[in-house]
C-alpha cells in the first residue's frame, strides 16, 4: 500500500510537470502571472546575493579603465575630431531630410524612453537567452516594448511584473524581428538561433548579401522603431546561410533602456493637412 502511494505521488508530480510544459507552451495567463510574482519576490534576494560579484566586476572594470586611460584618451581625441566633422555633415542631411519629409507629408512615429533599467539576472543557458531587468508595470513597462542600449537593439519585453520584467534577447531561438539591409532597403526577418551569430529568414533569392552589410530595424510590426543598429553581416556561406554579428555585445550588458514606439497614423494628421492633400492627389490622378 505504501509503495503504491509512493508511486502515485511520483506519477502525480511528473504529470503535473508535463501539464505545465504543455499549457505553458501557449503562453498561459495563469502561468505567466505566477512567473511575474516569483520574479518580484526574488529580485531583492538575487540583488543581495549578487553584491560580491558586482563589486568584483566593478573593481576589475576600474583597474582596466585606469590601465587604459592614456590609450583611450588618444583614441577619443581622434574620434572627437572625426565626429565633429560628421556632425556638420549630418546636420545638413537632417535639414534636407526634414524638408523632404515635409514636402511628402511623411509623419514619423513617436519614440519614448519608458525607463532605464539594470540587468539583475541572466538565463545563463545554452537553450534560452533572456534576462531579468529591475523595472516593471510600476515604471510603465509593457509586454512588447523594445529594449535597447547605446550600441543597438537588445530584445523585447515578454513578461512583466510589478518591479521586474523579462527581456527576450535577439539571439534567442524564439526571437524574430523585422529588419532591413541598409545598402538596398530589402526587408527581411532576423532570427535568433541561440548562438553568437544571428540568421536571416525569408531572404529573396535574387538578393546577395556580402560581408560588412549593415542591418537596421525596418520599423515594420510597430515594436522596434526604424533604423536602430542590429548587426553586421560577417559570413555568407555557400549554402546561402547568412551570419550576422549583433551590434550589441550581450556579454557586457549592465544597463538597458526600455522604449515605446508608436507608429504615426493618419488620424494624427491635422484637418488642414488632409484638406491640402486632397486636390494635389486628385490632380495627379487626372494627369
Amino acid at each position, binding site marked *: 500500500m505504501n509503495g503504491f502511494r509512493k508511486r502515485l*505521488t*511520483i506519477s502525480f*508530480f*511528473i504529470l*503535473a*510537470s*508535463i*501539464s*505545465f*510544459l504543455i499549457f*505553458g*507552451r501557449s503562453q498561459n495567463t495563469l*502561468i505567466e502571472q*505566477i*512567473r511575474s510574482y*516569483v*520574479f518580484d519576490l*526574488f529580485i531583492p*534576494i*538575487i540583488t543581495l*546575493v*549578487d553584491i560580491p*560579484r558586482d563589486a568584483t*566586476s566593478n573593481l576589475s572594470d576600474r583597474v582596466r579603465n585606469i590601465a587604459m586611460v592614456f590609450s583611450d584618451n588618444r583614441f577619443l581625441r581622434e574620434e572627437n575630431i572625426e565626429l565633429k566633422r560628421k556632425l556638420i555633415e549630418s546636420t545638413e542631411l537632417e535639414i534636407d531630410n526634414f524638408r523632404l519629409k515635409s514636402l511628402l507629408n511623411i509623419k514619423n512615429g513617436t519614440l519614448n524612453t519608458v525607463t532605464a533599467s539594470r*540587468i*539583475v*539576472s*541572466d*538565463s*545563463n*543557458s*545554452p*537553450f*534560452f537567452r*533572456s*534576462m*531579468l531587468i529591475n523595472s516593471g508595470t510600476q515604471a510603465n513597462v509593457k509586454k512588447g516594448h523594445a529594449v535597447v542600449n547605446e550600441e543597438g537593439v537588445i530584445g523585447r519585453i515578454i513578461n512583466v511584473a510589478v518591479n521586474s520584467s*523579462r527581456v527576450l534577447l535577439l539571439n534567442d*531561438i*524564439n526571437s524574430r524581428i523585422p529588419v532591413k539591409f541598409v545598402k538596398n532597403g530589402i526587408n527581411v526577418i532576423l532570427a535568433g538561433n*541561440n*548562438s553568437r551569430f544571428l540568421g536571416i529568414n525569408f531572404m529573396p533569392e535574387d538578393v546577395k548579401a556580402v560581408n560588412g552589410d549593415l542591418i537596421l530595424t525596418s520599423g515594420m510590426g510597430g515594436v522596434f522603431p526604424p533604423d536602430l543598429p542590429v548587426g553586421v553581416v560577417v559570413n555568407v556561406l555557400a549554402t546561402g546561410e547568412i551570419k550576422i554579428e549583433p551590434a550589441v555585445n*550581450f*556579454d*557586457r*550588458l*549592465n544597463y538597458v533602456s526600455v522604449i515605446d514606439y508608436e507608429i504615426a497614423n493618419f488620424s494624427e494628421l491635422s484637418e488642414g493637412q488632409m484638406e491640402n492633400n486632397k486636390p494635389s492627389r486628385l490632380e495627379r490622378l487626372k494627369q
Partner: protein
Amino acid sequence: MNILHKGKSSFGIKKILPFITVLFLIIIMVLPYQYKIIANTMPFLTLIGIYYWSFFKPNLLPIGAVFVLGLLQDTLLGSPFGLMSLLLIVAQQFIFFQSRHFLEKNFIFNFFIYIILVIGFGFLSWGITSLYFVVFLEYWEVIIQILLTIALYPIIKLTLSLNNKS
C-alpha cells in the same frame, strides 16, 4: 526551557537546509556573470544539490520540494515552465533507485553513477527542449555543461557537507 527551544529551532533549520541550499544554487545560476564562457555553459548546480541531498539525506528533500525547486528554477531561468521540475524529479528517482542498490559501494563507484546521471540529465534536457521548440538544438554547449557539472561536484559536495555538519 531555553535549551529545549534552541534544540527545536536547530532541528527546524536542518530540515529546511536542503531546500535552502538548492535554492541558493539556483540563484547562483542566474546571476548576470558577463563572461561568455560562464554565460552559456553554466553547470547544472541544482542537479549537484539534488544528488547530494537525495543520496545522503533523502528524507530531508521530498519529491514535493524538488517539484517546487524545479518550478522556481524554470521561472528564474526563463526556461519552459515544468521542464526543470520534470528533469529534477526524474533525476531524484534515478538516485533513489541507484542508492538502494549501490550505496554500500565505494566513492569511485558512486561517482561513476553520478557521471551517468549528469550525462543522462544533460542529454534529456537537450532532447526535451529540442522537442519543445521543435528544432534540433546545438549540443556542444551541453557537453561542456556536463563536463563542468562533473568537475564541480567535489567542491560543492565539500561545501554542502560542511554546512550539513555545522
